[in-house]
């Protein structure tokens, strides 16, 4: 008879600060291998949650499940209280633009046969009813936002560096004004100095657009620098979620670097 009050308390706390994403006991098996075992966590608006674990611990599977790229065996993924896994196609197509993902390998993230400008324009053409001129000016704004130069638009992905591609991906994603972005090791293939640029850019975008991040990484130093909370995952289950005291506010960081 002792258990219910605790649960009640939890749901009261929940109502006080609305959660953007709630994951409840997500599980998935690949034949005999248990990849995810009852994974639960939640994310507030404008928050960054880090997901730390070694290769094969299931962090990418969690990220892909949240993006509906992977179908979990059981569990719920609530986006603003609605279960993504129970939605029909039409409902999903409405939510989909609000959920975006940055992949680990920049070199395989863009269509190699499309110029950067076409890759960036594509989501705008599909999801937004804009005229040609409007798309053009929107692209200019996005390029400025992510720090790419106009000459980059004319290039193909293989003519860009890893850091430049991640910027282009961010421009492409941000164009749809997402609420939630899963960043799966966005900087693990980049140099230290480029990594710093991309992480800073991601923080700046969060500051401007109040987007929520699930940041997947195997580099604790990186997570400590950018996350509000860090979840430690081991063999498919979350061992602990801790507040990250080391993260300093964006304003503080900008002040420091000046």
């Amino acid at each position, binding site marked *: 008879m002792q258990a219910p009050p605790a649960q009640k308390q939890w749901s009261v706390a929940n109502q006080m600060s609305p959660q953007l994403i709630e994951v409840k006991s997500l599980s998935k098996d690949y034949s005999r291998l248990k990849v995810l075992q009852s994974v639960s966590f939640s994310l507030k608006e404008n928050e960054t949650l880090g997901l730390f674990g070694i290769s094969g611990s299931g962090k990418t599977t969690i990220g892909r499940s949240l993006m509906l790229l992977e179908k979990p065996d059981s569990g719920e993924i609530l986006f603003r209280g609605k279960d993504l896994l129970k939605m029909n196609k039409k409902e999903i197509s409405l939510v989909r633009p609000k959920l975006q993902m940055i992949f680990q390998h920049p070199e395989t993230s863009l269509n190699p046969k499309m110029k950067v400008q076409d890759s960036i324009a594509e989501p705008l053409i599909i999801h937004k009813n804009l005229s040609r001129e409007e798309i053009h000016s929107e692209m200019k704004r996005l390029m400025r936002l992510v720090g790419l130069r106009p000459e980059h638009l004319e290039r193909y992905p293989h003519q860009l*560096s890893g850091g430049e591609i991640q910027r282009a991906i961010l421009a492409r994603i941000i164009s749809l004004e997402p609420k939630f972005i899963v960043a799966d090791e966005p900087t693990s293939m980049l140099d230290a100095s*480029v990594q710093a640029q991309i992480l800073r850019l991601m923080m700046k975008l969060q500051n401007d657009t109040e987007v929520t991040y699930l940041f997947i990484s195997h*580099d604790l130093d990186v997570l400590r620098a950018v996350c509000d909370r860090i979840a430690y995952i081991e063999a498919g289950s979350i061992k602990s979620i801790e507040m990250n005291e080391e993260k300093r506010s964006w304003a503080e*960081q900008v002040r420091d670097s000046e």
Partner: protein
Amino acid sequence: MALLEVSHLDVGFNTQLGSVQAVNDVSFQIKKGETLGLIGESGSGKSVIGMSLLRLLPMNACVKGEAFFEGKDLLTMKEKDLQKIRGERISFIPQNPTASLNPLLKNGLQVSEVFERKGHSKENSWKSALKVMERLMIRDPGLSAKKYPHQLSGGMRQRLVAGIALSLQPELVIADEPTKGLDSLTRGKTIEFFKHLEGDEDRAMLLITHDLDLAYEICDRLAVLYAGEIVEMGPAGELMDLPSHPYTRGLIKSLPKNGLIPLEGRSPSLLELPGGCYFGERCCHHKKECSCKHPQLKNSGAWQTRCHLN
């Protein structure tokens, strides 16, 4: 006497847009048993230096300068003579272990073919391969040898590739980005493994990396590259603790644990290098002299810096 003495190495690539000057006037020495780290961001010419020493670059590369290995110039010797050195006395651990292994051959065979090529019998080669794998801290070499590369983890593949490179006990090993894209646990094991290698006999190593922590832990000396030239070279510990070149300082500051402060701007195009200091535009201590005169490497003891300010 130094084991390897590279002087005034220039590497250019002829492309449709003109000549890309990837390496500019690079000179360094590696003594017996010493580990030299080449650090710098991508495109700074680190890997090109490593490849040029063994003449592994594509046809459009134009290599100038000298690279003496035990008194013989690697860059001008006959291909036949180089073949006796390449793989046997100087070997190369390539950047991407997954792409460097043949996916259709069993792991053991990929190591033992090195010995077969040297004229050993199939049986003896297999035995030697198992010994190599055992020495490289590969668990249960007998079983791993019968598996295929895709059945190994990233860290194990890294070691297997290292094993192939080290099987003939070379005097100099060139390792290109051994920790790129590995997770922290595997990376830790790889660092441990390289430390173990370093302690081994009097083997010298040229470690090419952008992983500053790895460089700090393994190398005796470090050379920092920027836009194809060495901007700073010195003992590893001191250089990381008290860097004197503004670029090295910026690089160290950009690490997450040091505040994640990025370097402003981008490195110059290698098609058209600026007249003054290559780093000038991004440097916060920029002064007039920096944009008109190209700084030379200045010696002070074991330390070399290319900057007008020092």
